[in-house]
């Protein structure tokens, strides 16, 4: 296949995927709202465009499916048939099949899906819907026209481009078709667009406002912006030094002014580039209405899903990686959180369960919450299970606060399917949630109240490429620690640090926390330094672990650009990446998600 054709096809695939993604939640919305002309129109248009493009490229199986769904949508839109649950099921099924077909096209695996079953199902559904309908003035004509589609069912591979008679005929009632505004290379192939000319035009205009850019290009700009940040840091550093030695010199003043300006511009540039990678989280959220609908239907539960803040923008990497953890959490809420309708009624709760997904920005963090009004997590059961799995000791279980106990579900090894049923199931795959979130440099927590429900909260940094970090000195080495995991910094006397069975501990406001010497954890050569009387201690939280680390000096907070190191298994070394400081020095960024594993293992 020629490159040009490849390009056209890949464009088609992208567009088709976007269309399907867009219309999927609409179906669910439609189901709750009942008849809604705008929605139906929107879906209809999506299907229609998909059909047109697929027809032009000769993907007959896509055309067949899309065409039938389109016919159903059209009748629904015109109020000729009513939306039933069965009808919806079939349509949703066809959307799934379309997605499958598109993915085959994308992968070029040449797999031919057998769609004949679905096609027949679609035709059947339409027929039942039409015949079951009180006959309106137009419907007899439509009924008679109905039979033709089945013929095509049996010849699905006809190579001829689609020219389906019925929709056009019906369309004649409406204003005459405008010329298709979309620049389609071969106008003769597709049935002309015939719906709402104005809206179509408006849509085209919107498209021009957006530019589809290759991600690698944006990443390149991002990299370069990072370089500028480093150069700026270095310049600021040098200018400050010059100012100290030649204070009052006119040229130095000028330099300071210019670097100050550069500083501001660079910050703006950084923000602008960051924004280029940001996308509304709706991209992830949009698949949830469908998922909640399907799952709750399967389980015989009645659940309302509410989504807030889908316009919240997050980094592209977050979009790519947050989907799975959220699916886990939502599935968990539906499966184990929300009770069966009878149980809910018995508890005096509304019969319909509620799940609320929300996203919002809080300072430099993006917070995503999934709240259900189900039965909450049984803390005692969690403790029992953690105990039986040897994750905690009897003593720990007794002392443990409820808050800490609930977060045990995030421990790897906590969740396995078999025991989960016994435990009313909370915690299936929750360690996956935690690991994925930790990869994004964020953290996950859960808040629960018996019979009132649970809230899973994921907090993520706004951007992944530039982070706030605390720069510390350990021995002669400098390290950066992401600010997100630091709770507070303290200066303590050496005598405050106690030793309990070989483990150093520090009491902070009544809580005893383990203390780790970073010089030991990182095997830093200390050259037999005299131990200082005062120690700098950072209180850190990683997931459910709260602990202190001691360093030799705090060098201050800095905005740093994360650089990945190729050629080193940095994850195994407990390193998130590296950054280059103002004076050109390489400083490693510590990854406590990894380091804590060995720190706590050696206790």
């Amino acid at each position: 296949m020629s490159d040009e054709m490849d390009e056209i096809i890949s464009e088609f695939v992208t567009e088709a995927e976007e269309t399907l993604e867009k219309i999927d939640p609409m179906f669910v919305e439609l189901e709750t709202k009942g008849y809604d002309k705008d929605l139906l129109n929107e879906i209809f248009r999506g299907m229609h465009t998909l059909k047109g493009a697929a027809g032009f490229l000769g993907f007959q199986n896509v055309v067949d499916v899309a065409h039938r769904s389109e016919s159903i949508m059209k009748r629904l839109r015109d109020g000729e048939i009513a939306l039933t649950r069965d009808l919806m099921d079939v349509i949703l099924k066809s959307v799934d099949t379309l997605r499958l077909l598109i993915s085959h096209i994308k992968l070029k695996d040449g797999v031919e899906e057998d769609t004949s079953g679905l096609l027949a199902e679609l035709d059947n559904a339409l027929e039942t819907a039409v015949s079951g309908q009180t006959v309106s003035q137009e419907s007899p004509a439509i009924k008679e026209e109905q039979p033709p589609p089945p013929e095509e069912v049996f010849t699905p591979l006809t190579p001829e481009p689609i020219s389906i008679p019925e929709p056009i005929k019906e369309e004649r009632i409406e204003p005459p078709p405008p010329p298709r505004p979309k620049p389609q290379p071969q106008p003769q192939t597709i049935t002309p667009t015939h719906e709402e000319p104005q809206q179509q035009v408006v849509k085209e205009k919107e498209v021009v406002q957006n530019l589809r850019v290759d991600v690698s290009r944006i990443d390149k700009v991002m990299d370069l912006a990072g370089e500028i940040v480093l150069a700026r840091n270095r310049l600021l550093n040098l200018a400050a030094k010059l100012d100290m030695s030649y204070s009052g010199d006119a040229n130095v003043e000028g330099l300071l002014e210019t670097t100050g300006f550069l500083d501001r511009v660079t910050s703006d540039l950084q923000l602008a580039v960051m924004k280029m990678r940001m996308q509304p989280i709706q991209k992830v959220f949009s698949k949830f209405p469908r998922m909640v609908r399907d799952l709750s239907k399967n389980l015989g539960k009645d659940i309302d899903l509410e989504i807030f803040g889908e316009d919240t923008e997050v980094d592209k990497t977050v979009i790519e990686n947050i989907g799975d953890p959220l699916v886990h959490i939502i599935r968990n809420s539906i499966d184990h959180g929300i009770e069966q309708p009878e149980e809910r009624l018995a508890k005096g709760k509304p019969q319909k369960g509620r799940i609320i997904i929300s996203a919002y920005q809080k300072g430099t963090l993006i917070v995503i919450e999934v709240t259900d009004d189900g039965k909450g997590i049984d803390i005692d059961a969690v403790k029992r299970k953690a105990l039986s799995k040897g994750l905690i000791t009897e003593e720990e279980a007794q002392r443990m606060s409820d808050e800490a106990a609930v977060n045990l579900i995030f421990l790897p090894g906590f969740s396995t399917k078999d025991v989960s049923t016994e435990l009313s199931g909370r915690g299936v795959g929750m360690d996956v949630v935690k690991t994925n979130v930790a990869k994004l440099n964020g953290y996950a927590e859960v808040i629960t109240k018996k019979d009132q429900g649970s809230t899973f909260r994921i907090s993520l940094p706004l951007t992944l490429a530039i982070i706030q970090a605390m720069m510390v000195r350990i021995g002669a080495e400098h390290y950066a620690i992401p600010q997100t995991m630091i709770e507070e910094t303290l200066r303590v006397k050496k005598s405050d640090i106690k030793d309990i069975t070989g483990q150093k501990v520090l009491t902070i406001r009544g809580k005893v926390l383990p203390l780790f010497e970073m010089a030991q954890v990182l095997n830093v050569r200390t050259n037999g330094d005299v131990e200082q009387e005062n120690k700098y201690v950072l209180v850190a939280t990683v997931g459910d672990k709260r602990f202190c680390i001691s360093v030799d000096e705090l060098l201050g907070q800095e905005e740093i650009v994360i650089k990945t190191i190729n050629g080193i298994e940095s994850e195994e070394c407990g390193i998130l990446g590296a950054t280059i400081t103002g004076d050109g020095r390489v400083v490693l960024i510590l990854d406590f998600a990894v380091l804590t594993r060995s720190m706590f293992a050696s206790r």
Partner: protein
Amino acid sequence: MNALAVSSSEQKNPEAAEELLQLVTLTLGDEEYAVDILKVQEINRMKEITRVPNAPSYVEGVINLRGKVIPVVNLRAKFGLMDKEKDDKTRIMIMDIQGITMGLIVDSVSEVLRIPTSIVEPTPPMASNISSEFIKGIAKLDERLIILLDMDRLLGKSEDTELLQLN
């Protein structure tokens, strides 16, 4: 700039009646080694290296190469030779190994050589201090014996992960 760039301009070589190898030679102790010139990006003087905790022992650390952070491997440690004080002859060879830029600490870098393939002999067993699997062959040049290193084997991905697992 302390970089002595060894570009591939040496490639222009029309009189290729016999196939020629273009090599950069380096020393470790008394032995002379050579690597394919195309793998060498530049040769730098010793500079500040940031140690990476918990990394394999032969990884000396990372350096800042014009804004890129790249790992640096100590070739002596890699070959299991005694460590040697860094001096003003010590060099960091920046190499491109299977798409990954890496630095390689060597005692010194001597010259760029062009030798015919005919003088390269297969590795005799136990010919050197280092394991023969990293050696492509041995070139005899007058009185000199130059060991040709197989950089991909030496620092390639598969081997690297293997070693990490051992650690």
